[in-house]
C-alpha cells in the first residue's frame, strides 16, 4: 500500500501534523486500511530523510506541522501520473494454496474451492450491502468511499470467477487423467550453482 505517496499527496494540500494526517487518510479511504500513528511518524521521518518534507511551524497547542518540499511535490506529480505496477512476484496466498493442494494426495480440491467460494461470496454480499446503503454519493468523502468499495467488490468478483474457472479446469484435467498427486522427488537438489553441462561448456 502506498502510504508514503498518499501522505505526501495529502501534504501537497497544505502543512499537517501527525494525527491530522492519519484522520485525513482515513476519511479519504473510508477507514478501510486504518493506519496507526506510529506508521505515520515513521513514514514522515523517512520522507524528511529523503528531502520530500520538512518541519514547519509548531502551533499554540504544540502540534508539530510538516510541510512538503519542491522535491515532494515532484514525487506526488510522478505518482499520480504513473500506473501502479502489480508485479508477478507478489505472493497470492490463495493461488499458492490451490497450487499446492492440487499436487497433494487425499485432498478434496473441489471442497477446498467451495469453502473459499462461500467465504468470497459472503465478503461480496457484505460489500454489496454496504454499497447499496449509498446509491448516490452526496459528498467527496462518500464518493471516495464508494470507489474503494467498488474496488473491493470487483476484486472479490474476480476471485469468485477465478475459482469457477479453476473448478472447470480441474474437472477437465481430472477427465483427462492429469489431476494425479505429485509424489515427493527423492533426488535431493544440490546446493550452489547448477553444474555446467558438457554442451554448455563446449
Amino acid at each position, binding site marked *: 500500500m502506498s502510504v508514503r505517496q498518499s501522505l505526501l499527496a495529502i501534504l501537497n494540500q497544505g502543512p499537517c501534523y501527525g494525527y491530522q494526517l492519519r484522520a485525513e487518510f482515513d476519511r479519504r479511504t473510508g477507514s478501510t486500511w486504518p493506519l496507526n500513528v506510529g506508521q505515520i511518524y515513521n513514514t514522515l521521518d523517512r520522507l524528511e530523510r529523503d528531502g520530500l518534507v520538512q518541519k514547519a511551524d509548531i502551533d499554540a497547542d504544540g502540534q508539530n506541522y510538516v510541510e512538503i518540499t519542491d522535491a515532494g511535490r515532484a514525487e506526488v506529480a510522478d505518482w499520480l501520473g504513473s500506473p501502479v505496477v502489480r508485479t508477478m512476484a507478489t505472493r497470492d496466498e490463495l493461488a499458492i494454496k490451490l497450487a499446492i493442494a492440487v499436487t497433494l494426495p487425499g485432498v478434496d480440491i473441489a471442497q477446498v474451492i467451495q469453502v473459499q*467460494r462461500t467465504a468470497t461470496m459472503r465478503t461480496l454480499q457484505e460489500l454489496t450491502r454496504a454499497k447499496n446503503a449509498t446509491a448516490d454519493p452526496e459528498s467527496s468523502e462518500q464518493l471516495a468511499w464508494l470507489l474503494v468499495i467498488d474496488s473491493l467488490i470487483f476484486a472479490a468478483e474476480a476471485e469468485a470467477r477465478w475459482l469457477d474457472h479453476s473448478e472447470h479446469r480441474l474437472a477437465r484435467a481430472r477427465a483427462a487423467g492429469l489431476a494425479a498427486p505429485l509424489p515427493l522427488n527423492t533426488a535431493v537438489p544440490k546446493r550452489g550453482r547448477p553444474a555446467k553441462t558438457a554442451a554448455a561448456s563446449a
Partner: protein
Amino acid sequence: MTGSDILLQLDGVSMQYGCGETAITALAGVDLSVRCGELVAVMGASGSGKSTLLTVAGGLTPPTAGEVIVEGHWLSQLSARELATLRRRSLGFVFQDFNLIPSLTALENVSLPLELDGWTSKRAHRPAVDALNIVELGDRAQHFPSDLSGGQQQRVAIARAVVGGRSLILADEPTGALDSTTGELVLRMLRSRVDAGAGGILVTHDARHAAWADRIVFLRDGRIVDESRASAVTSLLSGLPA
C-alpha cells in the same frame, strides 16, 4: 420469523430425467425455503440443476420425488386447474430474454396475468399502472416492447411478475442479456420488491449479482453443497462517511 413467513418450501425435492442407465439426475434431495422479504440466489456451474430448481419451484414441472409447498399449498395435491390458478396469483417469473408479448404494450403485458385470472381489462388497469410505477416506467405504459431498451423491458417483466400482489418472484438469469449498469438497476428493482415483503429466487452465474441476495446456495450435481448468508452488519468496513 415464524413458519407462516415461509412463501416457498422445497422438501427433499429430486428430479430425474429419463430412466435406467441413461437417467440424468438434475436435482437430488434439495431442501430449500424462501421467506417473506428474503431473496435467495442460486449459483452453480452449467448443468448443476439451477434452472430445473426454478421450474420445479414454480410448479411448471412436478418433481420425481419430494414436495413443493407454495404459500402453504402442497403442489402435488392440487388439480391442474388449481395449480394454474396458484401460479397466476402467487408466482411471478422473470426470464433472461424478458418473454414480453411484442404485440402488446407495456401496460397490456403487465395486465395480462390479471386478465387471464378473470379480471376485466379496466379493473386490471390500476394495479398494472401501479406495478409499472414501482419499476419507474409509468411514463412508458403505452410503449411496445420494441420501443423499450433491454433494461426497460426487463423492468416491465418485473412489474408483470409482481402485479396484483403476487408474492414470490422466480428470476432466471434476469440480468444475463443486460450490460452491467442496467443489470444493476434491474437488481435494485428486484431487491426493492423483496424488501417490500415479497420473496424471491434469483438464479445467476454472476457473483456480483448474486451478492444482492440475503442468502446464496451453491448447487453441484443437483445437490446444495453450501450456503452463504450475509451478516447483518458488515465487519469489513467501518462505515459510511457522513
